């Protein structure tokens, strides 16, 4: 038996969907079939990637019109801003914008030399790694448990998915309250245990707090992908392993986990993207980067340097560095999307 998950682009996230549609396959049109619907008398059109075999002719007028809104929006709010970030990163301007000077890579050099930036890198690293491990670990355990049980499955799933609906800022506020050293109920429990918990003063406590809040908000995301992924593991495999005497946990570790490999890889990349970029609201609502820069993650520093300190050159240089990181993540992601995973059994 061959389970073939052949996956174009973004679809591997949707094994369930593929099953429903029954056609998850790659859409490359067989060469022999290409052009059969075209008028005769014309040269057979070359096969094109991502173009329907039955399409609407050659005129560029209508498709241009259809593409125009998207391309205009991208031009104004994506391409021009990105280009400007690139340009600003090699310029030095004073906060009032009266003088601008071309300084090559001076902004990058002073950035990498600054201890603040290095601290920010370290903080971001520990924050994202801790968040990643916590999120993925909990999601795996929960997904395993969900896959085992029958009764109450949808009720559990509903509750566990709830944080997805809650804004990161609100998740941050909820946790800030729970662990508020003056009034928070969980902080009081910690104080009762003799732990001097105060995220407003202690850098480690602050980092733990934002990590908890960020993970709490994101476990549901990993969880649902893993649950859906587990559904796609063929029952026959599991049964065969059970006949061979493998227990449930052994089966999970030796069969389900390897089959989930691509999903886990994808989720790891997504967790990094989440930790790097989307946790801004949590940081701003809970700690504002403090105390003493302990939670000043890179994206928050871009914001502070750009809008509070008005150091546009440095902020743009930071943006460019973050862009390269985002680019790497996206390429990793696409590598995964383009891969066709074959499980010959």
């Amino acid at each position: 038996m061959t389970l073939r998950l052949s996956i174009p682009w973004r679809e591997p996230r949707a094994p369930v969907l593929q099953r429903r549609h029954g056609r998850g396959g790659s859409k490359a049109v067989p060469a022999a079939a290409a052009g059969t619907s075209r008028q005769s008398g014309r040269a057979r059109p070359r096969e094109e990637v991502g173009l329907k075999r039955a399409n609407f002719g050659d005129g560029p007028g209508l498709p241009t019109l259809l593409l125009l809104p998207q391309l205009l929006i991208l031009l104004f709010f994506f391409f021009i801003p990105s280009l400007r970030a690139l340009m600003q990163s090699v310029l030095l301007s004073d906060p009032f914008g009266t003088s601008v000077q071309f300084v090559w890579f001076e902004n990058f050099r002073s950035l990498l030399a600054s201890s603040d930036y290095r601290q920010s890198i370290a903080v971001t690293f520990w924050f994202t790694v801790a968040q990643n491990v916590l999120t993925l670990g909990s999601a795996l355990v929960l997904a395993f448990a969900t896959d085992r049980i029958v009764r109450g499955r949808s009720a559990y799933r509903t509750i566990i998915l709830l944080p997805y609906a809650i804004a990161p800022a609100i998740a941050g506020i909820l946790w800030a309250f729970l662990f508020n050293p003056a009034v928070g109920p969980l902080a009081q429990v910690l104080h009762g245990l003799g732990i001097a918990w105060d995220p407003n003063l202690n850098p480690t406590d602050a980092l733990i707090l934002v990590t908890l809040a960020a993970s709490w908000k994101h476990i549901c995301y990993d969880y649902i992908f893993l649950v859906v992924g587990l559904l796609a593991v063929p029952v026959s495999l599991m049964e065969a392993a059970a006949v061979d005497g493998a227990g449930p946990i052994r089966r999970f570790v030796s069969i389900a986990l390897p089959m989930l490999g691509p999903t886990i890889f994808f989720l790891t990349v997504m967790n990094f993207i989440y930790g790097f970029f989307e946790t801004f609201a949590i940081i701003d609502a809970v700690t504002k980067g403090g105390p003493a820069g302990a939670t000043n993650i890179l994206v928050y520093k871009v914001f502070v340097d750009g809008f509070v300190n008005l150091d546009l050159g440095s902020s743009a240089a930071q943006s460019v560095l973050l862009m390269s990181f985002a680019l790497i993540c996206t390429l990793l992601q696409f590598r995964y999307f383009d891969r066709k995973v074959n499980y010959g059994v």
Partner: protein
Amino acid sequence: MVERSPVLNMLCHAILIAGALTVCIPLYFAFVAGSLTVAEVQKVPLPWLPGSQFFDNLQLAWSKGNFSRTFANSVIVALGITAGKIAVSLLSAFAITYFRFRYRMLAFWLIFMSLMLPIEVRIVPTFEAVANAALPLQWLLDTLHVADLWRWISGHEVAIALEWNMVNTYPGLILPLIASATATFLFRQFFLTIPEELCEAARLDGASPLHFFWSILLPLSVPNMVALAIILFLFGWNQYLWPLLFTTDKDMATAVIALKGLIPRSDSEPAWNIAMSGALLTMLPPVLVVLLLQRWFIKGLVDSSK
């Protein structure tokens, strides 16, 4: 399930209950705090059972957060992002899958590139772009020396200064968040799975491209549109960084931004009860969406990343 193992099943239920509790505890304490008076909420230890002020606090939070205005803003922004992104994406996905034209692959790659950079990393230049959307045009005009050219042609001295400020406007809040191609790719993927025969038949019957789009493609896309709409609504409602930068006017703030104003800071009265009531109010619409439309929500979540 292959074999019976009651012990493991119990353990699984225990794990899931622990997970559900982890989700619920912050929400429960938000509810408890939201039902106490200011004096009670500062007591140590905090009561673990709700008080009697819940509805009074809700009312107070509603008026303090200017929620009747900010909720309307949030609804407009979230729906605007949802409708705008779906409309724009449907059209461009239709164009790149169903038309053969010379720069098709160029358009495809231009759109594709926008997947690579989240808005957070280009925040400062994007802000400038929206603070004065005419800036790039101005830049173009300056670079091409259009003013000098005009003077040379007509002999008049001219200065071209363009300005189009979108701060504190709905388009300023909505448009930059539409500028990503995730939805376009979702629809592209979906269009590629639609049988070729449908389009062939439509063409045989003499349907124009737009007729085909409107009466065949659009109805077929409804499930995908619904699923995506839910995700985009949550995305729009929960926006933080963008509205924070873009709304200097309190009347243009979204609900999440208004809520931020309710959080007690160290120098103000610690009115956590009001802050928590406000948090519950603000999270209510997206939570309801997820609860009521769960099947669609899961489909949307798994289909698209945003």
